[in-house]
């Protein structure tokens, strides 16, 4: 029997393909309404923190150094009011085998795929996760395919994504490169069906459990070094998994008072699925084009229920501009002797400003760095930006218009953050939850679930529902 391979037919087989490719029966955790049992899903399908630690130790993932950025702290204090300027620490995740924290996520997925007897893994990713899965698959002796959104219709590829393709091939992975468009998912499904490989999604409980060790290590390392927990941890936020896993790890370590701050590069106005705008951006991840849609509707991912639920854990969400992140990448190299990739420095840029609001005796942790190389480099990105008609200006970053210019701060006092109003994001999430499930009235279980999933309370949810005119 030949299967119908048309776009519509393959998309209709999505549920069936995914079930085979992940091996999780998500229906078990559904309530039939908005709510689902998140913690039960994480517990039953994931791995315990201790198991993850053992898996990661066996493949040399994790236990990366935590470094105090003394010169950057000193510079921040010069710009801060007297008595302000928290100490800035950074978790050097670039030390992982594939050069980013994504090795943590990939290690658990690949271990699991191997355990279940899959012959290979597939990941749909244009980011560091591709190289991470490729590296971990190589360790486990699994075949690997990475599907990338890479080129615009002129065949011009984003340098950072091309570098990721190169890295994947270095690990013996097959890279399938596509032009812009969410129909990447169609190709992804066809490949899963054809090969019977495991879907090493970023959004399964395995992927998130893999990041929990990062949060846990931060708490443990700081306790050892400084005898205390961090006051704040800043996480670059895109699909929400980095933030979710890190926060869960901190909670598991008992660091309950640590504030979790998400940071994204502001790409407002650029449509992520636009062919023309694809190469007008200088960041391919860690930006608002993923951060906002995934926060307001996490279940848009490639699995039925995403284990990455950033609003559950986020205390604050800020944006920074592209120019400031490039500037901070330069500063990290010039003042701290750490040459790292730009995208990972999104949270560092936010932390530099946040530290100036905090007291001198407080500690703020930037929870990642990533490797740098050809394509994944400030010069490569700025050269590419110029070639695509983007103007590079030294001035006031608050005037940056994504897709038109990149503004480097004329001195460090011009580095700024913008707060995203979390209640607005929460409301948008609640609206999406209602629309996607099509419920007419919200159950008591839903109310409690929504309160948890937005880090609010039932009163807040009731007020929002009243505003929307939805019964409960």
């Amino acid at each position: 029997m030949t299967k119908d391979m048309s776009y519509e037919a393959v998309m209709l087989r999505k549920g069936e393909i995914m079930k085979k490719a992940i091996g999780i029966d998500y229906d078990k955790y559904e309530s039939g309404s908005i709510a689902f049992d998140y913690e039960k899903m994480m517990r039953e399908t994931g791995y315990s923190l201790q198991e993850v630690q053992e898996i990661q130790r066996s493949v040399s993932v994790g236990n990366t150094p935590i470094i105090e950025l003394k010169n950057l702290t000193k510079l921040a204090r010069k710009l801060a009011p007297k008595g302000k300027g928290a100490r800035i620490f950074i978790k050097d995740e670039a030390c992982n085998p594939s050069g980013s924290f994504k090795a943590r996520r990939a290690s658990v997925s690949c271990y699991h795929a191997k355990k279940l007897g899959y012959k290979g893994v597939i990941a749909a990713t244009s980011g560091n996760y591709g190289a991470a899965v490729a590296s971990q698959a190589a360790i486990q002796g699994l075949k690997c395919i990475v599907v990338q959104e890479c080129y615009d219709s002129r065949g011009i590829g984003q340098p950072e994504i091309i570098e990721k393709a190169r890295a994947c091939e270095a690990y013996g992975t097959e890279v399938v490169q596509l032009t812009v468009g969410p129909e990447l998912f169609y190709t992804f499904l066809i490949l899963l069906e054809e090969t019977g490989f495991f879907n090493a999604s970023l959004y399964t409980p395995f992927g998130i459990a893999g990041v929990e060790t990062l949060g846990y290590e931060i708490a443990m390392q700081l306790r050892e070094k400084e005898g205390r927990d961090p006051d704040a941890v800043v996480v670059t936020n895109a699909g929400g998994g980095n933030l979710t896993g890190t926060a869960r790890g901190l909670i598991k370590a008992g660091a309950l008072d640590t504030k979790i701050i998400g940071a994204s590069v502001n790409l407002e106005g650029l449509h992520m699925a636009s062919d023309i705008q694809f190469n007008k951006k200088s960041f391919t991840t860690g930006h608002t084009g993923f951060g906002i849609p995934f926060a307001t509707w996490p279940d848009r991912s490639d699995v039925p229920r995403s284990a990455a639920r950033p609003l559950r854990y986020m205390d604050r969400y800020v944006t920074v501009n592209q120019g400031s992140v490039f500037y901070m990448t330069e500063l990290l190299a010039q003042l701290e002797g750490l040459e790292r990739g730009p995208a990972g420095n999104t949270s560092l840029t936010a932390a530099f400003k946040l530290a100036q609001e905090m007291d001198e005796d407080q500690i703020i942790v930037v929870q990642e760095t990533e490797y740098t190389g050809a394509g994944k480099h400030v010069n490569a990105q700025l050269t590419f930006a110029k070639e695509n008609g983007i103007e590079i200006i030294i001035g006031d970053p608050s005037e940056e218009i994504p897709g038109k210019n990149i503004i480097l701060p004329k001195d460090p006092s011009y580095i700024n953050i913008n707060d995203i109003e979390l209640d607005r994001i929460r409301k948008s999430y609640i609206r999406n939850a209602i629309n996607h499930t099509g419920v007419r009235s919200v159950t008591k279980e839903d109310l409690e679930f929504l309160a948890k999933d937005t880090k609010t309370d039932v009163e807040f949810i009731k007020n929002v529902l009243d505003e929307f005119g939805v019964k409960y």
Partner: protein
Amino acid sequence: MDAKRGDWVRIHNIILEAGQRAQNVPEDTQKVPLEMWVKGFLLDESANIGDRVKVETYIGRVVEGTLVEVNPYYKHNFGKAVPELLYVGRQARKLLLEGDEKDD
């Protein structure tokens, strides 16, 4: 003849034609096809650029497509000189020292 059996090549395919794109994609993307590139070892005895060929990918999958490149390689790099960036380190180092001089 551009390539012979066993050569490492790159092939190209149209996955969705311009008129077949998903409804939710922006207008500019609707107007262009969804394209795909993949690399592999040529399975045909010989072929020229532009021919329809079959390849075996690095992990052993067989894929058909149009031959576009033989011995493909990466051309991404560290970019050109970006003079706009040169002030960053010098300025920051100077700012760091300034206060110290006053303290002394």
